[in-house]
């Protein structure tokens, strides 16, 4: 059984420019103040941050956007994204975003949180904010581990995952089961759009950008709650070689937290539907690769 699309060829060796490479996107998006970041090599978070920044710019809503950022590795982006920002406590961003939005109804408000922040410390915050139908977008960077503290189990860590606080691998009988937060949020009537993306390969990044677009459009046009979860690589916190991050993510987190649009226009989509869609995508990708390369 396949969870998320995976085979897009090998991870590129970027120690030198590949032959024939050309710049198709600016190296630094407009909404980043610097190209530098403080993440580890192989981290997926910069890809996810870039994805939503690009979407905010494309939609033309950047100049009325306010970010509310939680506490985790990604917190360092608070200083580098060129977006008016409120720094929240660990877990509390959805409530802070609620206060911002109630005072600035015409703004585009989003949270940026990790799985430790949102699904551990602040689970009630995101659920209540979604149930209330607050017109904000909650963004979760889900790597299934406390990256900033050095690799500890979170509420989204998958069974069998080795962390510093589950050395023998997460055991259901001892540690309990992971929370599939996107699925949980999608069941709430107040949530209008819920999606789970990924950044472990180029196709997933492109797909995730579309999810961000629909999420922000939902906030602006429907004045409703939207949610985008992005699976991000954390080779440091997973204790795997940097280049193995995308593959490890595909084989572990990706088999449990299934990518796709979990709720669109009020309709919840089942895990089986998402798997079927992903398998179809994979077949198309494989066919294109067999023909010699991906279609433009």
């Amino acid at each position: 059984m396949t969870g998320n699309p995976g085979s897009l060829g090998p991870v590129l060796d970027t120690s030198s420019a590949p032959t024939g490479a050309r710049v198709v996107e600016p190296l630094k998006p407009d909404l980043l103040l610097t190209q530098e970041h403080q993440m580890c090599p192989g981290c997926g978070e910069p890809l996810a941050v870039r994805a939503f920044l690009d979407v905010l710019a494309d939609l033309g809503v950047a100049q009325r956007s306010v970010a509310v950022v939680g506490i985790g590795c990604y917190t360092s982006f608070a200083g580098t994204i060129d977006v008016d920002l409120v720094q929240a406590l660990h877990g509390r961003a959805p409530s802070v975003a609620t206060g911002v939005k109630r005072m600035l109804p015409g703004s585009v408000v989003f949270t940026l949180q990790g799985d430790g922040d949102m699904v551990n410390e602040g689970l009630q915050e995101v659920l209540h904010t979604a149930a209330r139908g607050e017109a904000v977008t909650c963004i979760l960077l889900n790597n299934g581990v406390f990256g900033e503290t050095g690799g500890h189990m979170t509420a989204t860590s998958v069974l069998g995952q080795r962390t510093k606080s589950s050395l023998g691998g997460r055991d259901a009988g001892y540690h309990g089961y992971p929370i599939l937060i996107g699925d949980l949020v999608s069941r709430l009537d107040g949530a209008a759009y819920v999606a789970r993306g990924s950044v472990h390969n180029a196709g997933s990044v492109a797909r995730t950008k579309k999810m961000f677009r629909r999420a922000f459009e939902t906030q602006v046009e429907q004045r409703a709650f939207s949610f985008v979860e992005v699976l991000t690589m954390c080779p440091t916190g997973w204790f795997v070689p940097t280049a193995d991050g995308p593959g490890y993510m595909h084989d572990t987190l990706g088999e449990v937290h299934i990518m796709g649009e979990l709720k669109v226009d009020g309709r919840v989509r089942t895990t089986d539907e998402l798997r079927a869609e992903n398998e179809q995508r994979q077949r198309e990708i494989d066919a294109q690769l067999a023909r010699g390369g991906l279609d433009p």
Partner: protein
Amino acid sequence: MTATGTPARTLMEGSEALVRASIAAGCRFFAGYPMTPFTEVLEHFARLLPDAGGACVNAESELEAVGMAWGALATGARAATGSTGQGLSLMQESFSEITLAELPLVAFNMARGQQDYFQATRGGGHGDYRHIVLAPQDVREGVELVQLAFFLADKWRNPVLLYGDYLLAHTQEAITIETLEFPDLPPKTWAVTGARSGSGWSGSVTPLGVGKHGQPALGQEGKFQYIATKMPMMEREVRVESGWCDDAETVVVAFGSPAKFVKYAIKQLRAGGHRIGYVRPITLWPFPHDAVRDAAGGTSVRRVGSFELSAGQMVDDVRIGVAGQVPVTFIGGVSTDHSGFGMGRLLDVDVVRERILALHEERELPVVPGYETNGYRLPEHQQEAAR
């Protein structure tokens, strides 16, 4: 009469008066979670804020209520939250960080007594911070102090706590809500509205010492030091009322609703020729240590008493103020009604008067009527340890 004000002398309960005064002061956002005796504050905000162009959220928890207020404040709005001391315990982490973020929060503690003095003045949260704490003695003063609270919060960019209680929340008084005038304050250029996003000069409101890339930042240590620098400056906001101290042999210190009982009891005692005075801290932080020192330093003063409805919390500040000039005696006590929400048997003018008189005449404090049988016996090993 203003949109939020009332015609002259309208009878209303304290909670409504505080809410109307908040709205008159420009408060446009409130979030809270019901809890006795704070609940009516939430009810009145929920009823009155929408018509004033604001919003009130019945938050799903105190943790979320303070977070919502945090967000509203960050946009530059005047905003508040509140609860009882129990609910404020849940908010303490945010209180610490909101102070570091320099957000002008106003928080109501409609306390279940006076056992939250330490929480209010020492802080239940982590780190170095102080909140200005205003303790009105009645609804009329509350209407003024709540407006002052919003002004001081903006002036110092620091949270201000209004310490009320069951009586303040529920007592009906005939009052007029007059909008008070305060000096102009600088515009909130620090607020984030999204307008600077994408300009290269976006802003951030943060408790951390970091800023946007390329903009100056204090660093975490610098942030802590900056907040510490503000504390002695805020001490200038000290407010205190005292009376009959010039010839006093005994001085009693009390705050909030119980202070009104103490003042009345002393008035009765003075009519009987007893030379007793009082000091009433209006700000619990900054505490009027100097006023207590001066009162205790009067040539006729022999003793100072602290009357509070707790096991003895403010008495620590009274001792700091008195600084050993004369003996300090705690003459209050733990006293709530049977529910634990309201005021107990100690808050009765006759009881208060007898305790003050016993202090004045250096007698043992009388047993409070109704508490005669309260002989709490500790386990033997604890009694042994105490011997």
